[in-house]
């Protein structure tokens, strides 16, 4: 058992490049002992890598090529090993968790790791993980030239073949579109307005994302050029013909969620519409807010009216979303709130009321609520005190001596 744990731990850390031989032997045995299917799987994977033996048989090999081949082989071996260890480790993990190794997916792996190695580290990227080696180790370019030292790619000597190929293709697309446009004009046809390219739901890759996509480092200026060319391509009236090419370097926007997910109010026994917002949080306060429409502007907080809050500021906080939307005498509000102090509770209720009111106001009002900051959570929390100083940030008084 300890061996297994050690094994999975190594995978988790993914730092050991050259594991010791003994463990390797054990792994091989394990793999053999497990099932034939796994072995065939890994064999398939191995065949994806370059066949070095046949390549090495050729006699005329440049020195640069030799060095490259050496490095590439090392890398391939390493990846092979990692891949193998990962598959075996995954099977062990599945057995440890008492699940079927055959149907153990990456999702299950993540769950198991979170269960076995609970971590309170703030940054998710720093927590223990067990991922396939392709995800953990950055991709490397395959051989760019043959044994004789002749590059495969026609833009090899630009230094960034993939990037310049992208620009080259873009310009080719532009030329094609021009030609098509000429043809259309000659035929005296009008462009179809419905076939326009829809670009609002996605954005261009950022510089880092593009670098990852191309497996090449590019400069700031080159990224600007890329954007310039792509914008030009998009601005053409028939750009929808190159849709596939354009989509390749764009990524969809995942936000704009809140506007789509406004829940429909349900009806209570009196036939009034109501909506309950749970998890209204601010500072240490937690609670839920129910809004009923039609109402008379009655506010109930933990069974009391607005006098629950003694200070004016808290009262203003609670009433602000109602006054802002002009719903103060058209809805009833009921809140249950606990924890924290008056300002935290008032802030939580404010957010809850604003969030619930989305179901009762129109689209433009929701937008202005968004602009007013009513729909934004306030994530600020009390900052912990640090040892060696009197407060969270406060330092001891400086004294010369």
């Amino acid at each position, binding site marked *: 058992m300890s061996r297994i744990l050690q094994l999975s731990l190594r995978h988790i850390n993914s730092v050991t490049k050259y594991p010791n031989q003994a463990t390797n032997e054990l792994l091989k045995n394990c793999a053999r002992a497990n099932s034939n299917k796994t072995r065939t799987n890994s064999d398939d994977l191995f065949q994806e890598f370059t066949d070095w033996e046949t390549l090495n048989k050729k006699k005329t090999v440049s020195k640069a090529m030799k060095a490259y081949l050496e490095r590439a082989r090392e890398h391939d071996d390493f990846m092979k090993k990692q891949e193998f260890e990962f598959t075996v480790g995954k099977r062990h993990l599945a057995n440890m968790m008492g699940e079927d190794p055959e149907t153990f997916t990456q999702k299950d792996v993540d769950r198991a790791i979170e269960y076995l190695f609970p971590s309170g580290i703030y940054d998710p990227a720093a927590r223990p993980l067990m991922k396939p080696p392709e995800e953990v180790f950055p991709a490397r370019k395959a051989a760019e030239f043959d044994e004789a030292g002749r590059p495969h790619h026609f833009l090899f000597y630009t230094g960034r073949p993939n990037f310049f190929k992208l620009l080259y293709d873009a310009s080719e697309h532009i030329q094609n579109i021009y030609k098509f446009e000429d043809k259309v004009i000659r035929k005296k046809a009008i462009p179809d307005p419905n076939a326009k390219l829809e670009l609002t739901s996605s954005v261009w890759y950022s510089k880092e994302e593009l670098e990852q996509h191309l497996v090449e480092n590019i400069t700031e200026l080159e990224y600007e050029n890329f954007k310039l060319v792509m914008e030009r391509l998009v601005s053409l009236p028939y750009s929808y013909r190159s849709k596939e090419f354009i989509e390749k370097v764009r990524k969809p926007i995942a936000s704009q969620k809140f506007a789509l997910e406004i829940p429909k109010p349900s009806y209570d026994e009196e036939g009034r519409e109501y909506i309950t917002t749970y998890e209204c949080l601010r500072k240490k306060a937690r609670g839920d807010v129910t809004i009923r429409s039609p109402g008379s502007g009655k506010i109930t907080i933990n069974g009391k009216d607005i006098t629950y809050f003694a200070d004016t500021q808290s009262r203003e906080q609670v*009433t602000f979303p109602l006054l802002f939307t002009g719903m103060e005498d058209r809805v009833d509000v009921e809140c249950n709130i606990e924890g924290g102090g008056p300002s935290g509770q008032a802030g939580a209720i404010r957010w809850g009321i604003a969030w619930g009111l989305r179901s009762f106001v129109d689209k433009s009002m929701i937008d202005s609520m968004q602009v007013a900051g009513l729909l934004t959570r306030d994530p600020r929390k009390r900052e912990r005190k640090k040892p060696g100083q009197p407060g969270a940030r406060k330092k001891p008084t400086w004294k010369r001596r």
Partner: protein
Amino acid sequence: MLSRNLRIACRRYSQSVTTFRTSEISPAQQNSNQIGLFYTLDNDLCKQLYGHGGLPKCFLKQTKTFTETTFMIRQPALEIIECIKATDFNKPAIRYVLHGEEGTGKSMTIAHLLHYAHQEGFLIIHVPWVSNWLRRVSRYKEMANSLTKEGFVDIPLDAAAWLLHFKTQNQHLLKSGELKVSKDYEWSKREKTPAGSTLLELIEHGIVRVKYACDVVDTLLHEVKLLSNTKQCKTFVAIDGYNGFFNPLTNLHTPTKKKVAPEEVTLTASFLELTKNDWTNGVMLLSTDAIAHPEYEQESYLPKYLLYRKGFDHIDPFVPIEVSNYTEKEFMTCASYYRDRLWLRGSPDIEKELKITSAHNPYRFMELCAPL
């Protein structure tokens, strides 16, 4: 400058058209049609009735700002006036207990009814705020062991101040000299008040000889009771913060640093004796206030909680009158009155916000308007 004055005058005039004032300045004539309206008090009368306390301090400040003293006619005051009008004065005096949340206007109701009592010719016995005697310990607070009652404590300066207050409030009745002392009172070898001397002489003695002030108060209250019983005068007793008499302890302490309980103070004994209903031809108006309660956060504002068991038993058959927050109408007239006084400015939407934020509480509303 002229145009600005003209503009203000125009606005004043145009606003005065909306009814938030009533010309009915006699409380006895006011009726339920005038609920929520303001009436103005004469300045001299104001000085006479409330010169030595009787109006809350914040309201006093406001009257200075507004350069007039106005009271809003509200339901509880009218209710009590109706009751007093219908009372048979041959029966033992009825006790009315005002209760309500903080800042709803209990003291203002008492002030309004004092005006009524003054107009109706009642002899007024008014205690502006009981806790001034028992809880506020100022630098000049003087305490002495009582000469006449064993184990009791005197607060002679407060008693003398109250006698002055009593004298000012009832100067018309006292000057006529019809109210006479029933028997001889001997204060010391040389000082005595013979039977048949006026109440005014008794009071003057208390004010001049501060040493005997507490005993004078005791005697005075006793004499007033007798006078009322014999129908020579009718008496109106108003005590604000009455539950202060029943708190477990006061802030006073004897020279030996012993804490004093309220029942060990001579004034308490006198006024508790007064508020028994063993006399006729009188009205007693008491208020119980959460602010006079010793605990910082009160659970309730109801008399039973604030008076404790003994206080509740002491005044047991009483008429509870609740003073509540502004109604919608009262709030709007108050807001237009503030606008008239330029105390409240800005767009009309402000009222809506203030209404929710103040939760219709009069004191809260006044406070919120102050910086506007």
